């Protein structure tokens, strides 16, 4: 793959980095990243990955853009209200960088379709930009079973967290959190609120993990949980112990098929309304 002069200029700030260079930019441009959720986390992640030149970006979300999304989901504009989020996201990404091949999946992710979607373009890295526990556990289990690295993240109010799973290189999400909380035990960000910038901070860190993975760099958040508290402006990087008896990634897994956990009632109502 030879660069055009326009690409050399577009990616010049990457290429001059010792850690990226011409080879690294090629790795980025040959990279395939799947973003699940075109919301608060997925929006900035998708925009930075498109801008960086990631060659194939999948984006999965069944929702349409709602006025209440625009306070934080910066990939969508006021004129996009009512439009499928994946379509609005693709338009923004291609306006930034026509090089990016954006593959849209206007579907809710569940146990029946997640494997096909990940295998569709044989994605190298998956970004969990979802807002509910059932799908977070589903993404984890699917990635463990398919041996795919992924970035988990969550945001609520003034808090955010993320961790990275790399097969064979540290714990998975289920090693740390075991099982989803009972439906309605934990408020969703719809009920609890979230400061708009939280998705920007944490989603951009997820995009950083994806880029570093494509570049073959070390120093990712595998084996660590990074938390951010915007009230106190504290970042904490917590070392995670590998769980030898994990139900899904341990040597004798008890979970060998994908599970659709029950959604919280308020989420279900919204699910069926769309």
């Amino acid at each position, binding site marked *: 793959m030879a*660069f055009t002069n326009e690409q*050399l*200029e577009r990616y*010049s*700030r990457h*290429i*001059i980095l*010792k850690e990226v*260079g*011409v*080879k690294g930019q090629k790795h980025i441009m040959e990279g395939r990243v799947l973003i699940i959720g075109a919301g608060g986390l997925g929006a900035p992640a998708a925009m930075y990955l498109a801008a960086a030149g990631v060659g194939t970006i999948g984006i999965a979300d069944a929702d349409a853009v709602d006025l209440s999304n625009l306070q934080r989901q910066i990939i969508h504009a006021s004129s996009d209200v009512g439009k499928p989020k994946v379509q609005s996201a693709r338009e923004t990404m291609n306006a930034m960088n026509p090089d990016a091949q954006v593959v849209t999946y206007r579907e809710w992710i569940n146990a029946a379709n997640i494997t096909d979607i990940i295998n569709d373009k044989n994605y190298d890295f998956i970004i969990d930009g979802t807002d509910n526990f059932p799908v977070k556990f589903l993404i984890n289990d699917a990635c463990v079973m398919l041996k795919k690295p992924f970035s988990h993240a969550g945001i609520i109010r003034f808090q955010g967290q993320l961790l990275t799973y790399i097969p064979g290189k540290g714990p998975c999400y289920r090693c740390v959190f075991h099982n989803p909380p009972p439906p309605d035990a934990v408020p969703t960000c719809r009920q609890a609120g979230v400061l708009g910038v939280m998705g920007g901070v944490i989603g951009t860190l997820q995009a950083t993990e994806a880029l570093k993975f494509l570049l073959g760099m070390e120093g990712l958040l595998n084996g660590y949980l990074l938390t951010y508290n915007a009230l106190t402006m504290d970042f904490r990087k917590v070392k995670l112990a590998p769980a030898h008896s994990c139900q899904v990634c341990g040597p004798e897994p008890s979970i060998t098929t994908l599970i659709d956990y029950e959604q919280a009632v308020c989420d279900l109502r919204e699910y069926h309304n769309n």
Partner: protein
Amino acid sequence: MSGQADARQTSARVDITDVVCPVTFVKTKVALEELEDGEVLEVRLNGGEPIQNVPRSLKDEGHKVTNVSQLDDGTFLLTVVKGGLL
């Protein structure tokens, strides 16, 4: 500065007088990418910012600048050994 590198044959040439920073170094990196360690690249560049920055950036990335000469038209020629400082 003279060494055995000076005697090596130039493997490739790149002219970066038609671009400005940082594309100057980007084009130089692209040209180096095609070479093996130890091969020699000749770079034609302008005075001022390019001659101040490009040799330094090359050095930072482990390449050895073995010769700098000024041409009659005021541009410069660099001789660079890929990976010569590694």
